[in-house]
């Protein structure tokens, strides 16, 4: 299993710091901000270079072709330009006032030759480009049978995924939000739909982006060679919170994928009260309240092994407080959360235009891939959604329109309930 991993930063920083005077100055400056100098490796979680599937790989190959061709031309032209600049420079006052050079007007042969050479260079780029266009457009014929179908819908500012093949009795197809789980090693064909404005579906390590445009049926295909956890993001400006419209793709081995489907198609988990009065008493946790706008909502440890962490998230937490969960479930109704959000098996009043929360607790993120899904961050989100994600509908159409106010205790109970939805 090849997951992206953060490189051992400190060692590299030391070796790179010697690279030159300029680098020293910059690194001195950048140490202030805790920078590292690995950026040239471009192996971040949304890298288009460190690819993990055939579509992104094909796109990368085309890119490399363009890089090598243009780099070759650049070196040649730049060398001539540099030579000309230094060779023909006027070095002294006498030079400047010398008789002007020969007033030549050009050389058609040289010019036509250069035009021919540039056309040739472009042909070298054009051939893989054309091949890439056809390859990346749709699942190859040979694999069509094996392709898995999903529909992805873009809303302001979150993603909804419909599993067209997974029907649930009396409900329809399986839907999830903001985390797309796919089988690894199998091509996945994703139908893309824009539900309000234009969005764009982009998981750089798996495939280039394709836009989700209202009134237009777009699609893309991708394949994750190995199981893994991939970062994705909306890539078309779609309003206030475009920057925080993110999502994740989790690729699982076939057996795990089927287990996951089984879990998801079942109704929401109900927490049973445990015997013993003391244990069932609601214990309110206290959460941080002094979040700054745009403050990071992730734990660096999560990134070290995200897929493993995602798997952990599929199991109920050990220190659940059934009474608190029950209180949260009541509040979910009392605070009208259910009128937008579906929790299959608990509440059915919700609509498709809002995220389905049936298995919310099994996701790794809150607020469309923005915050890590843990109690602390969930409490932050519930306390003031607009601070986290400006203009979002939970704030404008939920909290504001329905005049919802949550006390810290309410938040604690809701967090407990939501986290219990595995």
């Amino acid at each position, binding site marked *: 299993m090849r997951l992206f991993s953060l490189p051992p930063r400190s060692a590299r920083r030391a070796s790179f710091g010697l690279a030159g005077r300029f680098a020293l100055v910059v690194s001195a400056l950048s140490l202030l901000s*805790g920078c590292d100098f690995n*950026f040239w490796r471009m192996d*971040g979680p949304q890298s288009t270079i460190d690819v993990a599937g055939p579509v992104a790989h094909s*796109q990368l190959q085309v890119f490399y072709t363009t890089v090598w061709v243009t780099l070759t031309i650049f070196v040649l032209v730049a060398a001539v330009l540099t030579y000309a600049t230094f060779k023909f420079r006027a070095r002294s006052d006498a030079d400047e006032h010398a008789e002007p*050079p020969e007033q030549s007007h050009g050389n058609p042969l040289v010019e036509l030759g250069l035009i021919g050479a540039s056309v040739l260079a472009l042909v070298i780029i054009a051939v893989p480009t054309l091949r890439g266009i056809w390859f990346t457009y749709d699942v190859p014929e040979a694999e069509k049978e094996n392709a898995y179908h999903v529909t992805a819908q873009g809303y302001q500012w979150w993603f909804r995924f419909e599993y067209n093949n997974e029907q649930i009795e009396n409900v329809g197809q399986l839907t999830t939000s903001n985390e797309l789980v796919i089988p690894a090693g199998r091509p996945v064909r994703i139908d893309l739909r824009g539900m309000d404005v234009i969005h764009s579906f982009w998981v750089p390590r798996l495939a280039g982006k394709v836009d989700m445009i*209202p009134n237009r049926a777009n699609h893309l295909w991708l394949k994750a060679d190995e199981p893994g956890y991939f970062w994705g993001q909306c890539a078309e400006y779609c*309003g206030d919170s475009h920057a925080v419209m993110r999502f994740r793709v989790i690729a699982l081995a076939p057996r795990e994928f089927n287990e996951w489907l089984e879990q998801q198609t079942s109704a929401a988990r109900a927490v049973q009260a445990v015997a013993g009065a003391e244990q069932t008493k609601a214990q309110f946790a206290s959460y941080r309240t002094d979040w700054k706008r745009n403050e990071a909502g992730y734990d660096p440890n999560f990134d070290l092994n995200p897929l493993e962490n995602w798997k952990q998230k599929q199991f109920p937490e050990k220190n659940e407080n059934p009474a608190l969960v029950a209180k949260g479930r009541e509040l979910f109704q009392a605070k009208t959360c259910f009128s937008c959000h579906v929790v299959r098996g608990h509440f059915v009043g919700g609509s498709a235009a809002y995220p389905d929360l049936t298995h919310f607790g099994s996701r790794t993120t809150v607020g469309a891939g923005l915050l890590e899904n843990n109690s602390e961050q969930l409490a932050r989100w519930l306390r003031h959604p607009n601070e986290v994600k400006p203009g979002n509908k939970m704030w404008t159409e939920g909290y504001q329109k329905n005049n919802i106010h949550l006390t810290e205790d309410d938040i604690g109970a809701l967090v407990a309930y939501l986290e219990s939805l595995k």
Partner: protein
Amino acid sequence: MDATVKTHLIAQEPKAPAKPLVLWRPTATTGLISWLTTVDHKRIGFLYGVFALFFFLVGGVEALLIRAQLMFPNNNVLTAQQYNTMFTMHGTTMIFLAVMPLSSAFFNFIMPLQIGARDVAFPRLNAFSLWTFVAGAIVINIGWFHPGGAPDGGWFGYAPLTSKQFIPRHSIDFWVMGLQLLGVASIAAALNFIVTIINMRAPGMTMMRLPVFTWMTLITSFLIILSFPAITIALVELMMDRQFGTNFFEVSNGGMPILWQHLFWVFGHPEVYILILPAMGIVSEILPTFSRKPLFGYPIVVFSGACIGFLGFAVWSHHMFTTGMGTVATAAFALATMAIAVPTGVKIFNWIGTLWGGHLRMRTPMMFALGFVWMFMIGGFSGVMHAAAPADSQQQDSYFVIAHFHYVLIGGSLFALLAGIHYWFPLMFGRKVSEFWGKLSFWVIFIGFNVTFFPMHFLGLNGMPRRTFTYDGNMGWNTPNFIASIGAFTLGIGIAIYFAVMIYTYFKGEKVGRDPWDGRTLEWSISSPPPAYNFAVTPTVHARDAFWYEKHHKEEIAKENAEHAKAEREHGGIHMPHQSIYPFIASVGMLIGALASSALDSNAGQHKLAFAITGGVIMLVGIFLWSLEGADGYHLHLDKDGKIVEDPHAKH
């Protein structure tokens, strides 16, 4: 044309005196009124330049705020909406209010001088273009002072985000109406330049003797008149959707948002060449001058410019490779886009050919021009990478694209425009910028620019999308963003030095006489600053680098000029157009109309319709009086030293 046949038509002098219908014929030569009523292409060019540089600073401040926000992950300098406003206004301002009018300033000031004309073909239309441009700039920026807010839908304004449903604020209305006015201004100016270049060339100035900058002006003007209609109609459709509830982009009634993208980019791509071709023209003037030899392969440079302009209309969909156009369309647009690289590359080869064998004098304009060649080359190569559609699907809307077009627009357009300011400054104001300070500003700008934008290639390839007000620290984007911000502030300092030097030079700079650079084209043949009538005698052109030829055939030219001067005196002297206030009034009417329809709300009891109609009426009155006062002018007579011997206005 043989003018001798037509002398009977010219000999109808003296003209009828000022007509009774005309209410007011302004004659002020100094003061505010003289500027509002001026029809002198040099004054209009100067005003274009001043407004453009002002908005360039505004756009620069917006850019620095963007970089301040992105300097650190999870930063909190701007709110999401403020940030979105900043990038929208930065793009709109830099394209429409800075680079285009700065090019326009040179079109106005330099082009008539280069073809040996005394003014543009329609001097009053020229004034109208200027004031309508100012009106458009006001409307776009009025949102800063209005509760509706400044535009925040992106400079591309993709429907349906810009529909009333998703942005009900007036911000988008300002953007729509402002761009409409700028469209009117640009088209009017471009029509004027086309007629001027085709029809007002000095005798002997054949098309293939036109200076390259004038050629690029002509091509750019054609691009403007053919591409702006597409965005004007798109904006009309968007405006109708917003104001009257029509369905052009209304998804629920079957509207297709993709249509907006097509209309926008049918304009948007030629617009890219509208921004770069004038810059290429300027560089094609500077490199030969400072190499002291003619442009290498003039016909091919001109032809490739035309080729770029023509192909520019056939590649718009390469901005839409990710919209799911299908394989064939994607392939066709990818190949067409690659084809554009050929004429562009040809220009680079020819510029290097121009340097080859020359005597390069490394003055500040030359430094900027060489900087242009280098930076444009890098921008061009990353452009080829975008042309490869599969690679583009990863780069589209990422910081890689930002790096690319800033290399083309700053490293390209802006460097050339800054070079042009340095180059023509002595001609415009008779003063020369200090070489030390000029070169210092060049190096600070050059380094700052590269430090800002080179790391963005890495950011883009590492998956950072554009138009995002925040990012997390775990994405590997921290260092490049930090470096880019440092670079941006360096660039800001460089620009500040540049401006300070220019302002100082304007007031206190070293005085220079005519032709300080040993120029090659006609504009250098006149004294600096140029007199109102430009040429004491309309020059006769014998060769491509007309002034270079004059300098090497002094006696022959002097004799010829003396004859022409005599003939011109006999036929009534130098004809000058009258000043006029009506173009200004028509523009004011348009401003009122545009403000009323964008800023007012008829439901809120504001008299939207009344104000809009008032604006329309003022505009119509302006246009009617403009046509009634007629296009006539007065005559100047010069003595041997080029001094005006008669009071120009005494005659009528």
